[in-house]
């Protein structure tokens, strides 16, 4: 806290933090000095001059947005002279301005015009000249439109793009009165603008506006605003949805609250359209004679209950399984897993986490005792070293990336470990580009460097690592063979670069690691993360504020689904299913006999499909998942799902999976949901319903309780979501102190043991969550990949995500705006490979692995290494997972999406 000082503004005595912005201080104290170019998220610009004041001891008028509050300052904010000057300025500004107002936006300038009576032409001194100035309009962007005649040249958009989003897309063309904003060198469309819309949100006049619904919106007429959480990635951005006539027409970032402080990415701002898409499921459907027919809820639910009961009676509880969902709320997931545990009677419940970060979580649980990210998203802003391992953060967690870029601007260094180029490379100090599947060797090399250069934290090792220096010695011996030369031979990374990266990391004060799918989705996924944690532990770069290890989560509730127990291994709050005491405790909360709760681990996502293939699982309840795109080795999955006796899919759309369902249930979409989710930094966040579900679609939790009830097995009666939460926080100790009321304003990070606890920004400050509170080193060797390129399959294929699409794209691809940015599958191939094999940009190709094939088009790009390929996994017409393996990581059961040997052939 900075010191408080005293000043007076218009004879009003005011206390303010020393050095605070004078205009802001006035504003905070109810003194509304007119202003247009100032915005508290941005550095002051001093362009509009409306905020002029007089300060005792300073000459003339000074812009209050450009000075700091100081002790004893005596400020005049309003007198005749100042008001005359402001009127003059507004008058000037109006003369170059197109005043047409269509109610599409809040117009701060128009408000001032009215405040100063300048809507009356008689009060004006200057003739309107904007028509002579030939201001252009740029509507080339897929998502926004810029009209220079409504632009007051306040710089807010430029600074929004630079300072807040770190993208530097905008600037002025020309100078003086004819100047106007341009994207890139000329047209927005050709610029690097990625459609985040920060500029729109901060534009005071509506000179930049969203294209969607622009014609319908009238801000003065019946707009309802509802705050909720973004349905896409795991940043958990807080949105304000604008609803007009029962339809969502706009989405803004909520200013001033974590985690996003008003920032959004293109998906958060423009990706809401799917929620009101005509393809939404609106009635239950039952498959009869191979065709889906509309059915009543009673019919559908009774059928489901009957079938599930039959299977259970005939084949036992473990013949049933459920896929829960990272796209639904904590309340939904909690009840779903409760359904599986009580009504199905097993622990066969899992969801897509097994496909993304299971290896990370497994390694973190074993070494640190907690699988969640140790830090807060804001910490990137103040970090001096950020290490990204297999993490395309700019595209997959775009808003977290804005904090990373701010950190970089403040002097933080960025190290990237990734075989494939990502947009972050532009900001990186060091890019280590190891060959696919060689990460452990690279990390062991870094660890050896750290040990040899004595950059370890001996004190930390002794106090906080299990076995202290003895364990360390084992690691040191194991890594000794990873000399820079040896590492270079395996990974292709120059030894010196690897050493430099190790030094920067080890010497940093507050280094953060963000690890992604590139690291986890490998056969050696758990080993990769073990080596990463080894490096953290020996340098003591975890367990202090601002430093640690974080796996940013892919979907808005991946974290929450695990937290609340949608897992074959753990109960709510990460308590193992095998923990008898806990099962006893939870049985009491649930009001069921303890003996009825299965104490054996259940099957995980991919195992469920394998068991289905083997005929062991017969009935499957899928809530909001699309395994027919996201599971590895799809041909195998297809066989498996076909063998199932009975499949229920509960979703908001038809998906690649619904054709294999026996019953399809229509569920509520994100904008219709009430409840909570948990983001990547363990922050519990509220969802609020903005619109009603279409047709007969129902809330997931309501459907789940109905299924249970009709299976004659109550999993509880709830009037609303808050009642579910109240029970959940009793079952999961990490949530004890969190209630809906506390979440109204801002989210709270778990663990939160009581209602006065502020939540936990950093994990492991005093101890790790392992049984003895100590971190555990797991020295691991590099192992060669079993899957290798060979004469038949000469390329190694990598897969991943892009900014504009999301997961299996059932949501994202139902947004015209997002599709305009990217709507075509492709495979990236290095220039030299393309030349050697005579492929050209745009060539149609067939890609084949041992497991299957697909067709797509070539993009020639040096963003991949020679011999390697990359494909986005979002597009069902080119399903990458036809090619991937389901050979699993032995520890975490994760599948190696990141590495498949393939061949590429031209198709005519």
């Amino acid at each position, binding site marked *: 806290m900075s010191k408080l000082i005293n000043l007076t503004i218009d004879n009003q005595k005011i206390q303010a933090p020393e050095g605070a912005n004078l205009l802001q201080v006035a504003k905070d104290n109810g003194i509304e000095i007119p202003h247009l170019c100032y915005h508290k998220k941005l550095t002051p610009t*001093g362009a509009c*001059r409306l905020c002029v004041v007089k300060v005792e001891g300073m000459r003339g008028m000074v812009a209050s947005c450009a000075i700091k509050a100081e002790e004893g300052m005596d400020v005049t904010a309003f007198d005749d002279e100042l008001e005359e000057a402001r009127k003059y300025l507004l008058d000037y500004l109006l003369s170059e301005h197109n005043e047409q107002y269509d109610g599409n936006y809040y117009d701060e300038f128009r408000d001032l015009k009215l405040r100063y009576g300048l809507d009356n032409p008689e009060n004006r*001194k200057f003739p309107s*000249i904007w028509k002579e100035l030939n201001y252009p309009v740029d509507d080339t962007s897929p998502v926004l439109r810029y009209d220079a005649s409504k632009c007051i040249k306040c710089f807010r958009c430029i600074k929004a793009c630079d300072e807040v989003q770190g993208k530097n897309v905008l600037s002025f063309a020309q100078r003086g009165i004819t100047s106007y904003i341009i994207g890139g060198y000329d047209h927005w469309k050709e610029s690097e603008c990625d459609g985040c819309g920060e500029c729109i949100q901060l534009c005071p006049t509506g000179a930049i506006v969203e294209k969607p619904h622009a014609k319908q919106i009238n801000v003065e007429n019946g707009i309802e605003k509802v705050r909720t959480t973004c349905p896409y990635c795991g940043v958990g951005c807080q949105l304000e949805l604008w609803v007009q006539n029962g339809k969502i027409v706009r989405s803004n970032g909520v200013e001033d609250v974590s985690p996003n402080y008003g920032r959004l990415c293109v998906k958060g701002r423009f990706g809401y359209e799917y929620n009101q898409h005509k393809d939404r499921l609106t009635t239950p459907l039952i498959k009869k004679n191979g065709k889906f027919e509309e059915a009543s809820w009673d019919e559908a639910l009774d059928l489901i209950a009957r079938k599930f009961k039959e299977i259970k009676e005939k084949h036992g509880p473990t013949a049933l399984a459920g896929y829960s969902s990272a796209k639904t709320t904590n309340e939904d997931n909690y009840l779903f897993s409760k359904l599986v545990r009580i009504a199905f009677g097993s622990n066969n419940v899992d969801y897509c986490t097994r496909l993304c970060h299971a290896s990370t979580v497994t390694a973190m649980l074993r070494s640190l005792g907690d699988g969640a990210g140790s830090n807060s998203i804001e910490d990137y802003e103040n970090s001096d070293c950020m290490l990204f391992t297999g993490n395309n953060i700019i595209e997959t967690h775009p808003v977290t990336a804005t904090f990373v870029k701010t950190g970089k601007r403040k002097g933080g260094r960025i190290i990237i470990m990734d075989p494939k180029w990502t947009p972050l490379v532009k900001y990186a100090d060091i890019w280590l580009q190891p060959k696919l599947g060689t990460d452990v060797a690279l990390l062991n090399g870094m660890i050896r460097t750290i040990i040899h250069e004595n950059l370890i934290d001996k004190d930390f090792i002794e106090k906080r690592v299990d076995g202290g220096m003895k364990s360390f010695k084992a690691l040191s011996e194991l890594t000794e063979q990873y000399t820079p030369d040896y590492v270079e031979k395996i990974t292709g990374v120059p030894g010196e670069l690897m050493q430099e990266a190790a030094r920067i990391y080890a010497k940093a004060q507050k280094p953060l690691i963000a690890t992604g799918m590139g690291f986890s989705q490998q056969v050696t996924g758990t080993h990769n993360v073990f080596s990463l944690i080894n490096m953290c532990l020996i340098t003591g770069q975890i367990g202090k504020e601002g430093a640690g290890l974080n796996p940013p989560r892919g979907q808005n509730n991946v974290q929450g689904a695990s937290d609340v127990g949608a897992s074959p291994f753990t109960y709510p709050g990460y308590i193992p299913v095998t923990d008898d005491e806990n099962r006893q405790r939870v049985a009491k909360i649930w009001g069921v006999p303890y003996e009825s709760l299965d104490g054996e681990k259940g099957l995980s996502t991919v195992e469920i499909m394998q068991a289905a293939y083997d005929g062991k699982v017969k009935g499957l309840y899928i809530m909001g998942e699309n395994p027919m795109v996201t599971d590895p080795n799809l041909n195998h999955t297809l066989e498996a799902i076909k063998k199932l006796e009975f499949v229920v899919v509960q979703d908001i759309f038809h998906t690649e999976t619904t054709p294999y369902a026996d019953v399809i249930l229509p569920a509520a979409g994100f904008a219709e949901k009430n409840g909570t989710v948990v983001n990547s930094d363990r922050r519990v966040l509220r969802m609020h319903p903005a619109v009603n579900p279409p047709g007969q679609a129902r809330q997931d939790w309501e459907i789940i309780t109905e299924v249970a009830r009709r299976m004659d097995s109550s999993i509880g009666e709830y009037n609303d979501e808050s009642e579910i939460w109240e029970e959940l926080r009793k079952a999961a100790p990490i949530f004890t102190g969190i209630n809906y009321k506390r979440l109204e304003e801002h989210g709270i990070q778990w663990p939160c043991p009581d209602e006065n606890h502020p939540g936990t920004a950093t994990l492991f400050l005093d101890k790790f969550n392992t049984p003895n509170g100590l971190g555990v080193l797991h020295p691991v060797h590099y192992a060669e990949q079993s899957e290798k390129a060979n004469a038949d399959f000469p390329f190694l294929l990598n897969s991943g995500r892009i900014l504009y699409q999301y997961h299996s794209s059932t949501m994202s691809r139902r947004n015209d705006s997002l599709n305009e940015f990217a709507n075509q599958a492709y495979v990236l191939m290095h220039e030299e490979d393309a030349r050697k094999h005579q492929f050209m940009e745009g060539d149609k190709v067939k890609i084949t692995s041992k497991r299957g094939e697909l067709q797509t088009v070539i993009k020639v790009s040096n963003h991949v290494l020679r011999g390697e390929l990359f494909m986005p996994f979002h597009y069902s017409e080119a399903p990458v997972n036809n090619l991937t393996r389901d050979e699993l990581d032995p520890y975490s059961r994760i599948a190696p999406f990141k590495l498949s040997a393939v061949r590429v052939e031209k198709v005519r």
Partner: protein
Amino acid sequence: MIKETRITLKNIGKINPESIDDYIAVGGYQGLKKALTMEPFSVIDEMLEAGLRGRGGAGFSTGMKQKFTSKSCQECPQRYVVVNADEGEPGTFKDRVIMEQDPHLYLEGTIIAAYSIQATKGYIYLRGEYHDSILKTRKAIESAYERGFLGKNILGSGFDFDVEIRLGAGSYLCGEELTMLESLEGKRGNPRIKPPFPAEKGVFGAPTLVNNVETLANVPLIAKNGKEWYRQFGTERSAGTKIFTVSGQVNKPGHYEVEMGITLRQLINDLCGGMQDGKPFKAALLGGAAGTFVDQSMLDERMTYDNLTEKGATLGSGAVIVMAEKDSIYEVLHSCLRFFKHESCGKCVPCRVGTTQMVRDLIKLKNGVNDKKSLIEKLVKDSKMIASTSLCPLGQSPILPMESAARFFTDELVKEH
């Protein structure tokens, strides 16, 4: 008869500007040698007590600026010197004369200034159209490196200093120091909010000394000959000499270095050979577009920073445009205002829109309005409003020609056309 007092222009025409030996032969780099034997703060004191003031137009004490820059941000790892060689004021070409004909003089001044504030890096921000100045300066820098006047451990003193030329892209505003710093950082030429001043946070956030070429050309002379020697020229508060660049209706237009404090009449009659064809003097515009009109009542005022300011005029860059009876005040005023409209960067409202609206009103004045006198009053009022609210000094400039034209020539402006 007043004569020129050439101290900064002493070598002009006498040495080969491309020969460092020529420069050394006439005593060049002795100021630097002497300065390097002194403590940096003593060098600053010398400048301060010599009374040297900035020749870029504002006339701020050079020693004071050095003092502020050397004292601010002690923990900053680097300090910079920026040479303002963007000479953009209409009618001004004094810096060009120095750069083309005696480039080592201001380069030496730059090195001494750098030493005084312990700057290790300098930029010469040179007007892009000044081809010859660029070539000569480039050559001078090369030779200075060869002789050890630049680079590491200059003349064995342990002091390191590197200098680099950056070219201006034809924007008048980039001659304004804070805008220049933006431009040096590779950004668009918009001014910064002041404070902080360059002395606190200049280029790349480091303390920076910005000086004009002519200012720096005086520095080696003071370093070499001492403050007493320097103070013998000029007046008590405006010490030294000033280069005037005279154009318009005089017999011998050109550049003249004279002691501070001579009168306009002396400049025109004694040095410029009087008015062309003996035409009567009507007016002069002192200081370029950002300058003031004067009429014959000012002919005998001493031209020092303070006296002219007191009398409502400016010395500015030293540009003097002399007008005779048939020259139109309106046209000159019009071109000044058009110039500002054209050069306004557009960042702040009053200057961006105000200059445009003023030009429109001025055209109205010509095309006929009923009440020309009130229109002129409005123009003065507008220019005042622009000056008091604009962000940078460019917006504070239109008032100079506008108000002075109205003061001396309202009758003509009303009558004409």
